[in-house]
């Protein structure tokens, strides 16, 4: 009997099975107020301070549709090449759970606002970039639930907890749900396609300004459906992995689920239709509730709201406001920058495209912008397992650092310390430079003083240098750098000390 965690290697799984994916992505819209009331949507406020009778679902309260949320959803639908409904209704999804103030969620059921679209995504393969078309089933609006915190117990889940706390600040925040049609034919690239798709969605939403997609705050949540079938056979039973909240996790979740299901199937088992919970720490999922008996949400049209009937004129007006599509933008930037596919993909994979573009727009040299964002900063972001743009470093910071490097007041090494300071929240570039006292020591007299001290301390080294062993000067340079806390320019120190000793290279 196989356990829930057994897997077979990915390559072996893919050699036997074709995966089919389905992705349901929930994103909090960036509207200033909630979906049905005027409460603010800001993240991080004290629990239950951004609530009112409506979002608390108090008896008698009634929802009113946030027009900005409808507009954002239509714009997203248009950007995803969807048709926009001429008339559609909200529906109630009924189920009891303490994070839902009304014990039903206002959502959309069989009348989504946007439907039948697609999104093209590109993944890197050994044979160069390959494009996949992900078909979009629907884009609809709904409200978020409150946030539960379970205290005590071993699992952090509601069962077994000593008690649970609910924060309704999140309740009623507008969400859009974007549902793909089944994505088949990606084969071994399936995990990358899934990641590329969610990345593309994120970029699109940011470009549209409908959401800033702060994944680390849980504003984008992904449910990943995976099933396996042998080539030519009907699609298999799918599992739904929930709680997949980062781009990296989307890829990992698909990857590990393919390995898990393949193990089940190759050992004569049956994939259970179920909800699974993804764990960021292990990259694995565990079985949640079984969906073999489909939950009955008793959907019916929401009688407290009137239908949404966007006029065709308005839809066309919104179509006119769409910004450049990210894939079009990528093609344009690749051409403009004239860099290799590999270099370009490095930027894209790092999620640094906009940041590099904005840095260049802020006056930073293209190579320098790429170097910082895909090098040092990507490394730090990876170490911290957060998105690049969540570091707190902005294109304006890069521009300022580059200016200081250009006039010699910073060295590369010091620049890294400035980034460290910004990321640690010590303020902007100038604040970190002055706060940490990061100034390149270029005043010759100060340097000469330090050199004289070092020379006096190491007479044996002086003897060697004067004896022709110029490479021994490194020890003196090191001592001077140490004495100036790294703020001197090492090459200059070397030149000065050799001059002092009357030795030439």
């Amino acid at each position, binding site marked *: 009997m196989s356990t829930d965690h057994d897997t077979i290697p990915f390559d072996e799984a893919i050699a036997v099975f074709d995966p089919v994916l389905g992705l349901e992505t929930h994103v909090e819209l960036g509207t200033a107020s909630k979906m049905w009331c005027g409460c603010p949507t800001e993240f991080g406020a004290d629990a239950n301070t951004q609530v009112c*009778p409506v979002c*608390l*679902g*108090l*008896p*008698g*309260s*009634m*929802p*009113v*549709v946030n027009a900005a949320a409808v507009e954002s959803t239509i714009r997203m639908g248009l950007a995803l090449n969807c048709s926009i409904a001429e008339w559609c209704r909200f529906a*109630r999804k*009924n189920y*009891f759970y*303490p994070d839902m*103030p*009304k*014990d*039903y969620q206002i959502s959309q059921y069989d009348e989504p606002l946007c439907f039948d679209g697609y999104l093209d995504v590109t993944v890197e393969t050994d044979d160069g970039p390959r494009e996949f078309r992900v078909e979009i089933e629907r884009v609809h609006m709904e409200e978020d639930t409150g946030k539960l915190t379970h205290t005590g117990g071993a699992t952090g889940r*509601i*069962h077994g907890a000593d008690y*649970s706390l*609910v924060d309704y600040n999140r309740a009623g925040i507008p969400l859009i749900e974007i549902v793909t049609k089944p994505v088949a034919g990606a084969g071994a690239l399936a995990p990358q396609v899934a990641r590329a798709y969610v990345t593309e969605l994120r970029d699109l939403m940011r470009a549209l300004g409908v959401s800033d997609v702060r994944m680390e705050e849980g504003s984008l949540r992904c449910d990943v459906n995976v099933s396996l079938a042998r080539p030519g056979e009907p699609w298999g039973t799918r599992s739904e992995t929930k709680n997949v909240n980062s781009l990296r996790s989307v890829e990992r979740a698909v990857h590990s689920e393919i390995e898990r299901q393949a193990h089940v199937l190759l050992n004569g088992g049956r994939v259970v239709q179920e909800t699974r919970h993804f764990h960021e720490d292990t990259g694995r999922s565990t079985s949640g509730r079984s969906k073999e008996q*489909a939950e*009955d949400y*008793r*959907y*019916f049209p929401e*009688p*407290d*709201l*009137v239908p949404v009937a966007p006029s065709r004129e308005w839809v066309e007006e919104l179509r006119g406001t769409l910004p450049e599509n990210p894939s079009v933008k990528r093609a344009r930037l690749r051409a403009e920058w004239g860099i290799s596919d590999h270099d370009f993909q490095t930027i894209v994979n790092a999620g640094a495209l906009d940041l590099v573009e904005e840095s260049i727009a802020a006056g930073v040299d293209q190579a320098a912008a790429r170097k910082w964002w895909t090098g040092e900063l990507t490394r730090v972001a990876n170490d911290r397992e957060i998105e690049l743009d969540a570091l707190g470093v902005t294109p304006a910071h890069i521009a300022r650092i580059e200016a200081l490097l250009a006039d010699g007041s910073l060295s590369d090494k010091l620049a890294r310390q400035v980034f460290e300071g910004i990321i640690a929240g010590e303020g902007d570039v100038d604040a970190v430079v002055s706060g940490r006292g990061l100034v390149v020591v270029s005043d010759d007299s100060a340097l000469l003083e330090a050199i004289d001290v070092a020379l006096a301390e190491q007479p044996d080294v002086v003897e060697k240098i004067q004896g022709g062993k110029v490479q021994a000067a490194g020890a003196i340079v090191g001592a001077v750098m140490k004495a100036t806390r790294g703020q001197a320019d090492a090459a200059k120190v070397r030149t000065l000390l050799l001059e002092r000793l009357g030795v030439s290279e």
Partner: protein
Amino acid sequence: MAVMEDDLVRQDAATLASAIARGEVSSEEVTRAHLDRIAEVDGEVHAFLHVLNDEAMESARAIDARRAAGERLGPLAGVPLALKDVLTMTGVPTTCGSRILEGWRPPYDSTVVERLRAADVVILGKTNMDEFAMGSSTEHSAYGPTRNPWDLERIPGGSGGGSAAALAAFEAPLAIGTDTGGSIRQPASVTGTVGVKPTYGGVSRYGLVALASSLDQPGPCARTVLDTALLHAAIAGHDPRDSTSIQAPVPDVVAAARQADVRGMRVGLVRELSGEGYQTGVSQRFDEAVKILTDLGAEVVEVSCPNFEYALAAYYLILPSEASSNLARFDGMRYGLREGDDGARSVEEVMALTREAGFGPEVKRRIMIGTYALSSGYYDAYYGSAQKVRTLITRDFEAAFTQADVLISPTAPTTAFKIGDKVDDPLAMYLNDIATIPVNLAGNAAMSLPVGLAPEDGLPVGLQVMAPPMADDRLYRVGSALEAALVDRWGHLLIEEAPQL
């Protein structure tokens, strides 16, 4: 004419308001008189669940002070009112006649209450009702039945029996009801008072604890048609907090009530709402009223609404479906009753125990019917079909209104029945609303007004006037003309014939 203090509670609202405006009597005196009356008779009637003795007197004094300071006040300023316990009022218990909401004090005013405050109406307290407005007798209140002031052994109608009884017992000259299938009109009918269900969307539902959102409508209740119109005008009109509220000017119901003229109006008798199942005395008084309307110059025609026969069946699918969802939030997690939270039981168990303990049998019955009707696999057959019937009924009305300006019928098939008679027979109870339900399904406006006493039992009979959506003014034209003719005939309002309590 100066209003005698002894008579204050027997005056209508228009008379009290003008006496207060002229300084002949203070709102404080009027309010005091009504609170005294409540103290005197409500032990028998049990119209109120909660009386706002201090708050009402404070409001009355504040209104008197503003009048004394020369402020011009509205047409109902200083007049007391009884509020159905299904509408929220900040800090005042709102139970909806249910144990499950015991102790809940809402932190906000319903729009109706907000507008009543703006009109300087003095709210006396919250009135009894069938639990969550499910019933036609007020016997389904968790806090005990309300009794009909005409005969304390009989029901005052429902669900708004408390509001109607408060009017009939002279505990208040004005009351607010809500009407989902007849909960304003049927109590008015059996208590000899007037009640109007406005056009759906005419009065904001914000702060009305929902029974069936697509059917519920708050409305005015009083002892005269003019008072009802004045109250209607005070509470009606668009509310941005209720998406289903209509963005159009409120028909001038007060002018229509003062016009009291039916000459040239076409009045349609709905064939399907008469005959079998209607008590003899009800039919008799109804027929007499029709004759009066003809005498007053109305053209009476017969119309047919063939789909009305399916109205009750459709209603008892739509209402429970919506109610099963609307009442889900009463789960013991956030407010009201919480049962079985012993630290060991799960959330699901506490929710189930709370609902088991907190809801009465009629509420549970309807939640179960609604849950079933919305279930996947049954939805189309039940909820879906019911919505189709609803469309057909709306079309019946539309066709009828091409032949008539208003439609009329008896409001209820019988006069007030005895407490306990139908409480164990839901189907018999549901039939009380057979004539009132079609209007809710179509979203029209309708009024019930008293047209006499049934000879066989001496109890009030109500006549229903129905108008197309947003033609609420027609109700008042017909109602006030008929009322005036009847008062002429009797020498007084029918309510004056109610026995002394």
